[in-house]
């Protein structure tokens, strides 16, 4: 019973924070709203019993990605023209399109997918079982993902290197 309430609470918070993201003016506030969304989502995951993902959500997304984002915001001067005028010229058509999109998808899903959560806290999603499953069945994806990360590191270095050479 309490789980349902909490689920609704967390889901609602996520939605509200996401909506806030769209209307706040200062990018730092937007970043904080996003962090709130992410944390609420972590809560949802935990309530669903997928603890592994919940933990990693907090660690990776909030802990690394959002920190980096905040760092970037602090580095740049955000009080420029986009501060004065938040929205682009496509606000209205975009809103209408987004509503249409939601309606269409909702309509599609309504007919197809039944909504029945299984028991929470399934053993499948404990960290031990998850890791075994991950590195046994899906080791190829794991390796590919590491390749992707290496590529990202190289790219980042390349970006910085260019900058460094110019300064030096």
């Amino acid at each position: 019973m309490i789980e349902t309430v909490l689920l609704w609470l967390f889901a609602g918070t996520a939605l509200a924070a996401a909506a806030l993201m769209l209307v706040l003016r200062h990018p730092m506030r937007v970043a904080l709203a996003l962090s709130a969304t992410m944390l609420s989502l972590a809560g949802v995951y935990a309530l669903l019993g997928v603890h592994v993902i919940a933990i990693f959500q907090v660690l990776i997304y909030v802990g690394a990605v959002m920190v980096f984002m905040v760092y970037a915001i602090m580095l740049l001067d955000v009080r420029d023209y986009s501060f004065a005028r938040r929205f682009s010229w496509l606000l209205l058509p975009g809103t209408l399109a987004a509503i249409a999109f939601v309606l269409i998808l909702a309509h599609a899903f309504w007919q197809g997918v039944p909504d029945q959560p299984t028991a929470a806290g399934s053993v499948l999603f404990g960290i031990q079982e998850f890791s075994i499953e991950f590195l046994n069945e899906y080791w190829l994806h794991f390796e590919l993902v590491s390749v992707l990360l290496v590529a990202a590191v190289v790219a980042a270095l390349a970006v910085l290197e260019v900058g460094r050479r110019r300064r030096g």
Partner: protein
Amino acid sequence: MSQPLTAIVLLPLAGFLLNGLLGNRLGPRFVSTVGCGLPIAAFAVAVKCLLDLQAAGATPRIDLAYSWLVTGDNAFEIAFYFDRLAAVMVLIVTGVGSLIHLYSTGYMKGDKSYARYFAYLNLFLFFMLLLVLGRSLLVLFVGWEGVGLASYLLIGFWFEDPDKARAGKKAFITNRIGDAGFLLGMFVIYQALGTLDMDRVNAAFGSGVPAVSASLVGILLFIGATGKSAQIPLHVWLPDAMAGPTPVSALIHAATMVTAGVYLVARMSGIYVNAPEASALIAAIGAATAFFAATIAVVQTDIKKVLAYSTISQLGFMFVAAGVGAYSVAIFHLYTHAFFKACLFLGAGSVIHAMSGEQDIRKMGGLARKIPVTFATFTIATAAIAGIPPLAGFFSKDEILWFAFASSRGGSGLLYGTIATTALLTSFYMFRLVWLTFFGRSRLTPEVEHHVHESPLSMTSVLVVLAILSAIGGFLSIPHFLESLLPLPEIVPALERYETPLVVASIVLAFAGLGATAYMYGGGAERAERARLRFATLHRILSGKYYVDEAYDALIGRPLVWISERVFLAFGDRTLFDGTLHGLAALGRRTAAGLARVQNGNLHLYALLALFGIIVSIAWGWRHV
């Protein structure tokens, strides 16, 4: 030889090929031998054919050379037909033609295109023989077009001069206009009768009611004849054709090619006998042309132009005869005209040769003693054309005058009056020409006078032969020879008693012309000068040839050019075609430019468009799932 007619036709063709391909390499002597020898050989074969024909009782001989196109039970064949009419024509063409070839060896001596000249001349003979020997109108038409081509090539022989080249073009184009009528006539005949063989066509029209109006066919064929024989309204090319070498003028524009129209009408007499409207038209145009050309000839100052207009006028006489049903008389005049007109042209060539190229008779005079042979032959030929008895022209012209007056098929007093006046004018202007050229005080420039000399034997011998023929040719009665083929028309009974008076009248007219010339031009020509000043306007109109060329240019030439430029070029081609193409290209370009505005570099727009795409694909995929 089994096919002598084919041989007659092919001999000049061989001459064309030999001289055309090898002439330049093998030299003038080869060219002369081949160029003159082959026509003479053709003449000999023609004489033999005539003797055979007479022996065989005048039944026509038909040689089939080649069956060209067989469609079901109809065939277009290249066949040659030899009867008495064809005999007359072939002998004139090859005989007078050979004489003119001989003359040319002297006249064109030293010309750098000697071989080309003889090649073209032989080519002309080939086509002319196709014309007169052809059995079917189609073969005749091939010859018809071919002589037009040869005429173009020979008129524009010295083509480096643009005026001469233009004269050649004018001749060919004017001929072609007439040929359109000829073709239409052929189409009508073929469609109605299923054959183009002239003997069959004549028979079909002769026996009962044919499937098509004889007058229609007659008029269409006559349109072709007006083009070829330089009658109104297509006469404009012949005076300009004098730009070619003089022997060419003699052969083509006096003796043979221009007479093809008369031959056509005579040959198709089966049609014209049954077509009174067409015959009346022929007679009317013939008379009008004869008169009209004679009036212009009175004031011409170029020796060849006088003869050119004289030719047009004499052709008009022939058509008058054909128009009133006296076809054999027309052929008779064709025959005598070939002799004296060729003699006159060649004589003119001789004069020009003596005068080192001068052709203006105002700058001649007193040549009688300096070039006696030319003078004698020229005068005999002039007397012949004027109609002084007993020379050839008198007989043929008198017959024409008689039938124009008294034929029951269209003879009338008006017709007679017109051509009698023309006969008077003919006598006048021809003797005027003789007077101004050979008599009186010499008006030559000194250096020309220094070089005046009689022509070589190759030229004078031909002149003598033709003068003799002009003198005695009339005693061979062609109408009698052709009686079985081309019967003479009935004479209106009431007018029979005028026969002798009219003969006397002809003689009077001939001498009256001579007298008038002596009066106007004798003793210094002051009377002629005063007449010219008194009738200055008339003189100007006549000198301007009634401004027919200018009228054609203004009424036809310039509007056509205007239409071509404004309608077809500016509007049709540039605006419509180019405009459509450019328009399509511009449409493509502007559409592209419009569509390119989507890619404005703005990520927001890209994202929105991606969202649209997603929505559409979901909606579409979902509906079709």
